[in-house]
């Protein structure tokens, strides 16, 4: 039995403690040990972007990190976007605009879009393309994903407006 290291993480707002081998990938810890199977593993070498999560607010590829490196960090996976039960506007937009087919790249795409829209609520097409350049999709040809992100920006703006006094 190999030595294990105790780590503590917060995932989607909940605290978790686990013991992992130092070589265990963050992606495997999230998927296998904690059950966040929305983290998809598509290439295991940092190219496809399906395993993308937010780590302390920044996009990372969980297949390129060891779980021990995430000790003490706050992680957001796609499952954390609608903990309340209602779909997040980005998730709704992906349905309305046919932004997915097989769904395998979708969690990574949605999180990349989430991060983009935090920084740039009204992104240009070029900015969307740049922000999603690290996420591969083999089904859609991307056009519907692009439109989904544009639609998501509009939905988020609407929600923002309705909240304003």
């Amino acid at each position, binding site marked *: 039995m190999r030595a294990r290291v105790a780590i503590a993480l917060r995932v989607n707002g909940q605290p978790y403690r686990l013991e992992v081998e130092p070589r265990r990938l963050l992606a495997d810890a999230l998927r296998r040990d904690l059950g966040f199977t929305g983290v998809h593993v598509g290439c295991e070498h940092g190219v496809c972007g399906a395993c993308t999560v937010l780590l302390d607010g920044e996009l990372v590829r969980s297949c390129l990190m060891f779980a021990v490196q995430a000790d003490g960090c706050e992680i957001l996976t796609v499952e954390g976007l609608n903990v309340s039960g209602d779909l997040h506007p980005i998730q709704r937009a992906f349905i309305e605009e046919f932004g997915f*087919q097989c*769904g395998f790249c979708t969690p990574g795409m949605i999180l990349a879009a989430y991060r983009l829209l935090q920084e740039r609520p009204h992104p240009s097409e070029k900015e969307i393309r740049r922000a999603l350049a690290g996420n*591969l999709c083999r089904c859609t*040809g991307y056009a519907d994903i692009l439109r989904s992100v544009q639609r998501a920006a509009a939905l988020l703006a609407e929600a923002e407006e309705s909240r304003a006094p």
Partner: protein
Amino acid sequence: MLPSGRYVGQRVPRWEDRRFVQGRGRYLDDLNFPEQVEVAFVRSLHAHARLLRVDVEAARKHPEAVGAYTWEDLQGLLRPYWTMPRGPIRQAYVTPLASGKVRWVGEPVAVVAARDRYVAEDLCELVTVEYEPLPAVVDACDAMQRDCPRLYEEWPDNVVSRQTFRAGDPEAQLANCAVVIRKRFRSNRVTAVPLEGRGILARWDPLEETLTVWMGHQDVHLVRSVLSEVLELPLARIRVISPDVGGAFGIKLPIYPEEMVVCALARILKRPVKWVQDRKESLLGDTHAREAVVDVEAGFDAEGRIRAMRVHIVSDAGAYAVAGRGPVIEGSMLARELPGPYDLRHYAYTLDVVMTNKAPVAVYRGVGIPVSTFVMERVMDLAADALNFDPAEIRRRNLVRTFPYTTVTGHVYDAGQYVEGLEKALELVDYRRWRVEQARLREQGRYLGIGICCLVDATARGGGFYGRLGLKAASQEGCILRIDPAGGVSAALGTTSQGQGLGTALAQLIADTLALPLERVTVVMGDTATAPYGGGAWASRGAVAGGAVALLAARRLREKVQHIAAHLLEAAPEDIELADGRAFVRGAPTRSLSLEEIAHTAYFVAADLPRGMEPGLEVMVHWEPEIPATFAYAAQVMVVEVHPETGAIEILKYLVVEDCGPLINPGLVDGQLRGGILQGLGQALYEDLVYDAQGQLLTSTLMDYVLPGIQEAPEIEIHHMSTPSPRTVGGLRGVAESGTAGVLAVVANAVADALKPFGAEVTALPLSPARVVELIQDRREWTTGTSYTEGG
């Protein structure tokens, strides 16, 4: 005719698939069982070698090992299989783990089982394999030489199948043509790379002696049949379930050696066994496709009409056949579909399907047609050049105009508007304006190119397509449709979906036929325990074959509902109308029954049904199309700017006029087209599986095998024409492969057009920046005797 109603023809979003946007899909690797073990494979490091020794003892004895096995250890549990039970093909005996010899880099040699994949991979390091390397056969044309080493020593050469065809008198015609195009075309080797790799989870129940297999697959019934044969288990003892599938595109149609081995291990270990490939294994060992060399002789008369064609095709089959899909289909489709949408009467081909020391080849989106279209459309442009016609004009003169049209190879184009489709594309893209723009920019030293492509795509094979070859792959389709006692509707089909949204499309057809809200319809697919026999997803058959049985079943059920309602409401069946989940008497809206009430009678008070009527509200329908059922047609136009210094290709315009018959859901259809086009664009511009002279794959990561991303995705403008097919239910035609079918051609033609000032010849793919620069430099050196770089 498709039903008219609230849903058919609408962009209905896939709300029932909303789990995907929440990360709640259930893909293979999301499933785990207690006591589960995971396996890793030891794979051949050599392309061609004798296996002297495979020693797994050290791995087996390791305290963390659950098991380690060679082919010898699996005797009695797993049978070898044959390339293809019948058909024009030489037989090769394939063992799921190598025995005696290895024939490609990546071939499974041994397998190790452990607690998880990490440990299993560690233990693979303890397996010793001794090889005696043999010369690798890497190039299919070399493989045909008399003195070439043979992959299968019992064969006289490396040709697994030679097929010839002749119609009319091509030689005599060619002798009298105004111009004869003679060229060699090469298509690159690619693979589908679905984002979710392959994997399998197998559980053996020792009490029941049953095997349950979870596996992301396109045809669960085929998996079950193949497993039954190689495991020598009765069919009824095997259940195959395809959970959510993260893309497939053809590579999840065969049954691979790893999958057979995992099932055997589940039986030996009596524990659930799982294998999920990594991306290197996917690039090394998923089936490859489309590598071919095509020598063409095509003759045209002075009016630009194609008179005759002779071709020799060398199709690279790789080292083995995979079970369930042979290596020959790619080449034979290429050969038979080569005439495309053009009227050609004199045609002869020789097809050589050749084994090489590379990964096995089988089907990938479009099967043969992307390459046949590439060749035919290049030939059209070359002939137009030689005869000084505009590329649009030479196509006008050759497109099939009267329907039904039987092709020289025996296919029927049932109905179509081929010339109109081309004209519409030219008009919408503003072809003349682009030609003017091209001339203007050329004066400024800029290189615009306009590519045109017309294509037909065979959709939904029928007529016992694979069954006649002895394969248990159905070309018929089945649907069980039920109205349950609560008034809900559920459909079970033998076909499957890997992200196409087929469930939504079928629900639209059913909901409109039965006139009820879409939310009441559930579609289930991909489980041999519940699905009627059908063929799964291939040949763009989901909507054509799946749609046919869904429609036929829904019509039959509607009729039964009408008869029961008529009986209970004391009206004539033809006076019963269905709307919003209720049955009304026409003209008397107060006299009505809900589906729930009708179902209650059908299931629980059968005595009140019309005399002699069978109880229940459930029907089963099977339907098989003709071979092939029907063709989709498309005209594609692309405008590119080529930058000669960097070899970069910039897509300025991409327009498609598609005729896939009536649309069930334009959102899904356009998604299929755009996705298919982008996959084709990958092959045309970036993707290339490169082997070195020793047969080592040089492109075994996604850093080397470059897939197009969102930055590379052009805006694609899609327009539809909808010519119903008289040969299918509802007039439906398939669409999933039609986008892919045209891309290689339209890109090659556009780039060739742009590079015309350089005299560059575009006959090979991919058109990577390096190749484009090379094409320009080659011609400059050839024409001026000085190199391009020296000339500045």
